[in-house]
């Protein structure tokens, strides 16, 4: 499958945008989910969505003001009948440009990464 890339130009320095990545309250607001993220490699990543769905995983790479990568998978329900989705890897890159910051988000199924690695 192709890599799916989403981009947005934001008026503001990467330093301003970075806070929205690593502060759980700010992250929750733009993500549309109750978010928890420990900003360090191996740190816990957890998003609880309004419909009861949860996505959990861990930080893989983190370069302040530049890049945040985590691996997560979907968890629906608990105990008998619960389901766990396939893992995927999310990378958020911030690039300083004349207008401010170019934010690029890529999400790829982890299986694809393993196959091409």
């Amino acid at each position, binding site marked *: 499958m192709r890599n799916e890339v*989403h*981009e947005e130009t934001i008026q503001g320095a990467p330093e301003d945008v970075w806070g*929205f990545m690593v502060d759980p309250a700010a992250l929750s607001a733009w993500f549309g989910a109750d978010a928890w993220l420990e900003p360090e490699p191996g740190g816990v990543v957890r998003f609880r969505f309004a419909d009861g769905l949860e996505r959990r995983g861990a930080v893989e790479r983190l370069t302040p003001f530049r890049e945040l990568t985590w691996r997560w998978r979907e968890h629906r329900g608990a105990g008998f009948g619960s389901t766990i989705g396939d893992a995927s890897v999310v990378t958020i890159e911030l690039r300083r440009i004349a207008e401010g910051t170019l934010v690029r988000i890529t999400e790829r199924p982890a299986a694809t990464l393993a196959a091409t690695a």
Partner: protein
Amino acid sequence: MMARDQDAVFQALADPTRRRLLRALSTAGPSTLTELSTGMPVTRQAVSKHLAMLQEAGLVVGRGEVRGRRYEITPAPLADAMGWIADVGAGWDDRLARLKRQVEQRRRSRS
């Protein structure tokens, strides 16, 4: 994939009747308009219109003469990929739009 094709896929998958048609095609295999209309809560004309949108998005193809034409899902891997993209894609674009608004709002309120 072109942005325009992607929009067509998002739009096609956004409607519950079209998702239901895709599910019906994926379980029953190639089907005619008459077969697809049976068991759908909408009119035959509505099903025909939804099929046209699914065809435009490249998710479904119609084969044969108009009378007795059979519709089928385009090869599964492509449909799967599109489904996956549509699921996360719409979400990420919404999130990026919110992030932009919030960063720029905070910046304005500070200056």
